[in-house]
């Protein structure tokens, strides 16, 4: 890809978890001084990586109750924090509703327009499987940018129709107010196979649909299409997701996740 910066000092080949962390980091490019709020191990590494490299102005929580200015290793409750502000849970809603936030969330199911289900499988009245619930997704989606992280790309997660809409996608938001439409943005969907975004139709009348943006090294376009339960928009040219730079690999392996917690999401 164009923004791939080959590095002669690259210590060894990047692994899939590191490629995914970089793909998530890329979702924050250009965000500037907003709250970068990734949830989950790989997203947190990706967000912290973006701030440690190309988005130094972003603010980030310690995943508890403060904003910390230094790069924290994931999963280390005792790491020293350079505290810049107190951010108790309640204050997070002031940030959400201000729009100055970009979250990375999971999605148990996601459809072509980006409707996300975190809540339940089956009928919500008496679900076959109770999942996490709506959580903050309804408010997040209509107030600020969202990226989804789906570590198990399959026709069970990328579905024709989600059982419950926690985070509304482009078709659900289309009839809502101008203020909501202006704030709603699903920036990327990053999976273990590929990176997706949402293309607009030429006329702008049809709600945006999910489009393949890049495939991770070793993955073919056909494999992604087969693992997707709806018609994925596939451009003529699909590049490979970019590889981590040497600096990024160093940051991931030595600074942000020295314990290798990221491997757990990839069966490691």
């Amino acid at each position, binding site marked *: 890809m164009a923004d791939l910066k080959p590095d002669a000092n690259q210590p060894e080949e990047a692994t899939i978890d590191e490629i995914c962390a970089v793909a998530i980091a890329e979702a924050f490019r250009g965000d500037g001084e907003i709250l970068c709020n990734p949830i989950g191990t790989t997203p947190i590494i990706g967000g912290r990586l973006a701030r440690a490299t190309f988005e130094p102005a972003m603010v980030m929580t310690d995943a*508890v*109750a*403060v904003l910390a200015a230094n790069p924290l290793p994931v999963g280390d409750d005792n790491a020293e924090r350079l505290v810049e502000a*107190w951010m*108790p*849970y*309640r204050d997070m*809603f002031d940030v*959400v*509703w201000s729009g100055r936030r970009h979250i990375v969330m999971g999605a148990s199911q996601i459809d072509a327009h980006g409707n996300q289900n975190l*809540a*339940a499988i089956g009928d*919500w*009245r*008496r*679900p*076959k*499987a*109770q*999942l*996490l*619930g*709506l*959580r*903050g*997704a*309804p*408010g997040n*989606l*209509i*107030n600020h940018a969202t990226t989804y992280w789906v570590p198990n790309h399959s026709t069970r997660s990328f579905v024709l129709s989600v059982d*419950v*809409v*926690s*985070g*509304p996608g482009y078709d*659900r*938001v289309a009839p*809502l*107010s*101008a*203020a*909501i439409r202006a704030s709603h943005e699903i920036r990327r969907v990053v999976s273990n196979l590929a990176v997706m975004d949402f293309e607009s139709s030429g006329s702008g009348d049809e709600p945006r649909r999910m489009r393949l943006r890049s495939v991770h090294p070793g993955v073919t376009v056909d494999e992604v299409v087969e693992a997707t339960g709806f018609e994925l928009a596939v451009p003529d040219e699909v590049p490979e997701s970019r590889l981590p730079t040497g600096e990024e690999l160093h940051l991931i392996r030595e600074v942000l996740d020295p314990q290798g917690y990221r491997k757990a999401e990839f069966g490691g």
Partner: protein
Amino acid sequence: MKSSGSDDWVGGVGEGATERTLTAGHRDGSHNLTDRQGFRGGPDSPTVGRVTPPSQRSYAPSTLPAPDGRPDKRMTEDDVVARLSSGMTIGIGGWGSRRKPMSLVRAIARSELTDLTIVCYGGPEVGILSTLGKVRRAVYGFVSLDSIPLEPHFRQARQQGTIEVTELDEGAFYLGLLAAAHRVPFYPTRAGLGSDMMLMNPDLATVTSPYPDADGVHEDLVAIPAFQLDASLIHMNRADAAGNGQFLGPDLYFDDLFAKAATSTYLSCEKVIATGDLLAEGSLHTLKIPRLFVDGVVESPRGAHFTECPPDYGRDEAFQRVYAATAKDPEAWRAFVDRWLEAPSHAEYLERLDAEGEGA
């Protein structure tokens, strides 16, 4: 004194603003109020026109005796339960598996109370009270054990359809508490529009903004109704006997709003201390629960166990894992109920807990 105090309070909101600009040393009307009542009288009383240097504006523990006439609200967990009744709507403070009033929850668990509506950022209290058949409806922003993302007993109650639920966006839930605390019928928000929150809660209504936006459009918003709480239960690190509560950890969550939203609020705490000692362990900013919103104080050391209560103690993860595992094993659940939930008092619970620790 109470009635004159509240008159002053009402006046203080407006007058305080004027006085603040004149004295420059007092942050709001409430300090002027205490000055007038003599709690902090004497040579340092503010004088109009006098500016207190910042270095002298710290608050230290006081050696003054608490004045007579303030109520002593101390009681036991069972006293609290005696003031509750079946069918009530009860707010429960804390957040997930953090600073939950567990000794009060267990007192409900061993009581005759039933048909409750519980309102919370839910943790183990939802699973425990639902599985025991105490809950008709749970109203929540989420239910989680933090280190165990989904509360397994709650999950089971949902999948078996044994409880009714009102599931709201986490921020929308906050507005239900806020509306109740402010005694308005609802607060408007965009959160919920476009999602299935509206489908899952057919009683939720929208309101149309009376004000046009830049394009002249009147926007529709969700009206989150005020949570009408008959009672709230919260757990603090410290409190005095009159009910002034203090949190010493990193997050108050919504405990102040739970107290303000409810008709009656019962506060358990790790330790009851003298009013003069309230500033010994934490700054002024930790005193977020004034006694006028509190009806009962229960001294309950380790009262949040097995949830966390920093800085006094962290979560008992081993205990929480045992609790979680009982969702898949009816026999283990029965044993858990017998040993822990039906311990006749909090003191007995702590004895069993200590015995367990020694045996391990």
